[in-house]
Each structure stands twice: as structure tokens, then as C-alpha cells.
């Protein structure tokens, strides 16, 4: 089948303004959007720029806006989006070139929630691991699946309006550590989340949940953070 691929193009060294270019290419229904982009770059226009790495939905490099919705290009098939496909960079982040956006603001917000394990207590007597029950581990299992692709954060209207808002991905990371029974910095993280640019900016729009390629229930996780602030319960 022939697929019409309309791609957002912008080269700051040449273009004064962004534009779209349309390519007609042969594709199978089971081809991934990433395959189509590779085909354009390899055989039609080598100047096309986009990020990709593992190509198997794990690294989170190729999150793009496809037909108006955020997807991972490597996990989205032609049959999922039809034969007229528009590919654009993620919204809310500055475009560096073509489909590549500046992820710096995204990762700056991510760093604010202390995205690492904090435990100042001495190791257990045997000097080995800090063990955890399966139930305690299950409490934050959902939010360990995040691959930091930014599909959630860049689908959030609150983030579009204000990039100081921590965003869903940072909140998911905060959830992962706050509800970890071995971690000891829940209080510090909740203080950070309670600022004006924290969870208060989430208006339960659910775009993040729909955009997540890992099917994380992000809005539910943010709701649990709000309840933790109100009740103080971390179980």
C-alpha cells in the first residue's frame, strides 16, 4: 500500500519558519512509523532528523506526535494510524531540528523530584540487601515502568501552558520513590511536590494516561500523591 507521510520540518540554519514536507512511500500495514521514517531518511531525504535508539519501545527516544497524538514511533504500526500520517515533534518543548526537541527542561523537572534512592540508615546486620516484601514492592510496581520518553508530559495542557510545572513524568518518578518502603526521603519529595508547580497543576485531564506507551495509570498515580499529602499515609 502507498502511505502519505507528512513530516514537520525545521532546520534553524536554513529555515526562517517551520514547514511540512509530504512523502509518498510504499509500506506494509505492519510497518512501524519508525520504519517509514528510516525509509525516508535512508532513501528519499537524508537531511531528515529524528531520535531513535533501541527501536523496541524501551529507550523512549522516539516519542513523537503522530496524527495529533503522542506515540513511540517504534511501537506504532501503520494500521494503527491509517495511510495518511502526520508526524510532528512533541509539543511544549523547543524544536532543535525537524522532529528533535530540546529535552533539557523535561530532565530539569525530572531532577527536581530527587529521582534516586535515598536511605541514610546503616545496612542490615548481614551487610547485604535492604529486603522488601512482595506486597511493598507491588505498591510502586506500576511507576517503575516509566522510560522517560516524555510522551505524557508533552501531552499535558498544564505543561504546555507552563514548563515550570513538574509534569506527569517527574510525578511518576516521585511516586516510584515515595511509595518505596525502603526509601527515606518521602517527606522531602512531598515538600517539592506541594509547591505551586507541583501536583496542584495537575487538573486530572487524563491526556498523560492515554499517551503513555507503557500503559502506566499516571493520573491515578498523581491522585495517590495528592492523597499522600492529605493523609500522610504512604502504604
Amino acid at each position, binding site marked *: 500500500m502507498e502511505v502519505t507521510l507528512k513530516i514537520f520540518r525545521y532546520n534553524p540554519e536554513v529555515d526562517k519558519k517551520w514547514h511540512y514536507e509530504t512523502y509518498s512511500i510504499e509500506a506494509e500495514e505492519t510497518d512501524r512509523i519508525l520504519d517509514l521514517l528510516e525509509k525516508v531518511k535512508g532513501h528519499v531525504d537524508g537531511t531528515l532528523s529524528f531520535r531513535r535508539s533501541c527501536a523496541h519501545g524501551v529507550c523512549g527516544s522516539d516519542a513523537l506526535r503522530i496524527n495529533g497524538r503522542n506515540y513511540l514511533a517504534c511501537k506504532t504500526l501503520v494500521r494503527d494510524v491509517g495511510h495518511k500520517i502526520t508526524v510532528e515533534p512533541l509539543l511544549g518543548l523547543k524544536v532543535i531540528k525537524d522532529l528533535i526537541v530540546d529535552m533539557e527542561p523535561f530532565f530539569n523537572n525530572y531532577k527536581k523530584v530527587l529521582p534516586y534512592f535515598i536511605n541514610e540508615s546503616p545496612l542490615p546486620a548481614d551487610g547485604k540487601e535492604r529486603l*522488601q*516484601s512482595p506486597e511493598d514492592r507491588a505498591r510502586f510496581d506500576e511507576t517503575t515502568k516509566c522510560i522517560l520518553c516524555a510522551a505524557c508530559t508533552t501531552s499535558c495542557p498544564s505543561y504546555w501552558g507552563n514548563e515550570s510545572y513538574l509534569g506527569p513524568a517527574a510525578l511518576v518518578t516521585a511516586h516510584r520513590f515515595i511509595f518505596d518502603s525502603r526509601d527515606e526521603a518521602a517527606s522531602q519529595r*512531598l515538600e517539592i511536590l506541594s509547591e505551586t*508547580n507541583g501536583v*496542584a497543576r495537575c487538573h486530572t485531564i487524563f491526556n498523560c494516561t492515554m499517551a503513555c506507551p507503557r500503559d502506566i495509570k499516571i493520573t491515578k498515580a498523581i491522585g495517590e500523591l495528592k492523597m*499522600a499529602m492529605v493523609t500522610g*499515609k504512604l*502504604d
Partner: protein
Amino acid sequence: METAKPRTLPLSKRGFNFEMIMWIFTRLTALAMYGFILAGLIGGLIVSAQTGANLADILRWAFLPNLNENPLGAYIWITILVKLMVIAFVLIVSGHGVHGVLEILDDYFAGVVARRWFRNGIIAYALVVNAIAIYVIWAS
């Protein structure tokens, strides 16, 4: 293996600040609005049952109480009760709405100074408007 111990943070260590107080306030006031609407409807139904009023009168008594036309307005305690309920309703609705506007402004204005101005301005506006509303309701 570590035994599961309950983890509960005290109020001072869970980031329980103005934002979170207003988050709870907004949800509670939404529930309170439903409560007032229900009370207004039940009150309207009771009055209508006693006077054989039609639906239009019931809705008018429930949501736009005019005590001069309310058959039970002759009882002073009912007049005061209705006024207090209407004042409470106005305060809750305005608090809910004003905080909603502030939330939207906070979404789009990230500057500390801008946010402070909006917050103070809106609080001042709410105080003035509520004072006028209370006066009009009480004096009617």
C-alpha cells in the same frame, strides 16, 4: 526480610501547604454545593406540598428564594434560616469559583511576582464582592 511497618508522615512533613489546603477546599466546596442544592430542593418540595404550588414555584423557592412571596416567609426563623443558607451558599460558590480562576492563572503565569499579584488581587476582589453579597442578601 523487612516486615511491613505502617508509614504515615506527620502533618509538618508532608508538604501540607496553601496549595493542598485549597485543593481540599475546592473538592469539599463542590460537595457542599450539591448539599445546598439538595437542601433547597427538599425545602421547596416541603413548602410546595403545604401550599399546592406548581413546579415553577418550587424551583423559584429552591434557588431564588423571595421571602415576600414564600408562604412560610411569615415565620421569622425561616426567614433568617434562608438568609443564612443563601449567604453560606454564596460564600462557598465564590470561594470555589475564585480559587478556580486562580488555578487557571497559576497554570499560565509561572513568575513569582505575577502569581503573588494575582493571588492578592483575587483575594481582595473576593472579600469586596462577598461583603456586597452578604449586605444585599441580609438587607433584602
